[in-house]
């Protein structure tokens, strides 16, 4: 029994790391622009699929990964420039529809380029698993957790230690004041989209060797990432990371103990419970709305 739990925990933290990266991207964009970017999951798909294609045409592994990230970032920048920025004064409902539209558009584009086939990347460094009791830990799982930890650490340092990072947070607190003191709000927005596309793309590369990827793989991952962000409290980047890991673990425990068919349902039931009973998330700030 404890081995089952341990295995669930390993699987959960691995997949939870991917949710954490996507959730972190959500939180960054929400923090800067008050927009919930429903296209976040597509960055994951674009990253993974681009790497698959680049490898197929003979690009060396490391270069392919790097170029795939560049492509994901470019998609993020294009999205901001041509879909979010022109609709700046849009209402919440409008931005939701725009970003869902962007997500569907990217999925449609992926369908045209890559078709409906499932693809996979080779593991970064071999397939020989480490045995812990009867549970196994694959090298790729370690890559996922390790790289996620490093990325989260870097983002955390970036927000707390660098001028640009602090400026980015200032944009969210008060965009008008931010522009008055000379922070280029427009460029900051672009930067936020680029950064969260980078995180999404990285998540895609990391888990592509474990989970298959296809043109529509981004949607579910994106939604789970959003659930992670809400779990942690929207607008709190580190909360989103914690939310992602927690979500991944609960999901894989649920899949192990109940049934894997209900795995996705578990994530969304948790999401609803959090929204109903603790809508500010577990790490967010509570506040009474002032009229």
């Amino acid at each position, binding site marked *: 029994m404890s081995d089952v739990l341990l295995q669930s925990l390993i699987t959960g933290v691995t997949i939870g790391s991917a949710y954490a990266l996507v959730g972190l991207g959500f939180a960054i964009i929400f923090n800067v622009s008050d927009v*919930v970017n429903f296209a976040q999951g597509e960055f994951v798909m674009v990253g993974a699929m681009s790497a698959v294609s680049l490898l197929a045409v003979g690009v060396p592994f490391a270069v392919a990964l790097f170029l795939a990230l560049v492509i994901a970032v470019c998609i993020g920048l294009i999205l901001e420039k041509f879909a979010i920025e022109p609709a700046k004064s849009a209402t*919440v409902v409008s931005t939701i*529809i725009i970003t869902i539209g962007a997500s569907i558009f990217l999925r449609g584009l992926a369908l045209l380029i890559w078709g409906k086939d499932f693809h996979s990347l080779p593991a970064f460094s071999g397939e020989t698993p480490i045995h812990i009791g009867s549970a196994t830990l694959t090298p790729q799982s370690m890559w996922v957790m390790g790289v996620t930890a490093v990325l989260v650490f870097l983002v955390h340092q970036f927000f707390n230690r660098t001028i640009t990072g602090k400026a980015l947070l200032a944009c969210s607190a008060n965009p008008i004041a931010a522009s008055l003191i000379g922070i280029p709000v427009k460029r900051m927005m672009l930067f936020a989209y680029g950064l969260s596309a980078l995180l999404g793309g990285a998540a895609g590369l990391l888990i592509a060797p474990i989970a298959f990827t296809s043109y529509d793989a981004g949607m579910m991952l994106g939604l789970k990432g959003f659930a992670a962000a809400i779990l942690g409290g929207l607008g709190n980047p580190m909360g989103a990371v914690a939310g992602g890991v927690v979500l991944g673990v609960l999901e894989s425990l649920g899949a192990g103990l109940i049934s894997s068919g209900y795995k996705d349902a578990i994530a969304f039931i948790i999401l609803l419970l959090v929204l109903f009973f603790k809508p500010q998330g577990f790490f967010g700030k509570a506040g009474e709305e002032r009229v």
Partner: protein
Amino acid sequence: MKRYRGFFALASIITLAPILFPVNYFVTVVGVSIAINALIAVGLNLLMGYTGQISLGHAAFFGIGAYASGLLTTLLSWNPWLALLVGLLATWLVAELIARPILRLKGHYLAMATLGFGIIINILMVQPTHITGGPDGLSDIPVLNILGWDIDSDIRWYIVANGALLLGVWVALNLINSRIGLALRAVHGSEVGAQMMGVDIEKIKIKIFVVSALFAAFAGSLFAHQQGFISPDSFSFHFSIELVVMVVLGGMASKYGPIFGAAVLTMLPETLVVFEDYEVLILGAIMMGIMIFLPQGLWVGLSQKIKPLFIKKTISVEPAGG
């Protein structure tokens, strides 16, 4: 009466179309799907367009209606009308239960909660395979029968589905012009303002959520009998999004916009048959394009852009705020 002018125009178009084009595939076959989708969109518009509460999970209610009819008539061999009634009651119950906590949420949170609800219901259609037939769905759903008249041909379905649509539009029109309709629009305009005028906003939001869910469930029952076969794919997150697009494309809080939106979106895959793979891409492009360039919707937006060209007198044409 003036308020029914558009209604009579719609009724005339619906009546004349099959008379003028009796063998046109787009009228007699696609026309049925348009009517069913439009019925859901008209209901969703009451919630989204008029009351300002987004739902990204309305396909769930469409599905609950369809599965209630499908399951009860096949597994238990119930009378379809009884099954339809039970489907509506079940939807009422589910909507009422979920509405209370969900509609306390706003904006992104509301969107995410309705989305999550829709996905959970969709999973419940897939997973208990022994009951629902799983991903393969249910087949051999019997035909509907009205007073001894079997609804088993395209043209008969055209009459029934469009009759249901007209009934739905009539109800929605009345509601919007009533005391309750004013209160709903007030909630959209300013929640504090509405509360201060004595509107119990929590209660009224729950009620309109239930009403719009019932529109979808009713359409779902018709859909199940019309298709004779249902599977979870028809009630997925993707369809919830399409429903939202129908409302938005036509123009939120526009009386006939959602019908126009439903017509466009239902015909889109039919006209793109040759370019099937482009359908997803185009749907996404439409969503972004409309919201960026014509946020009031194609129907309202275009009519506002065209009107000033014909009316030279400068009546202040104000864009609808918000």
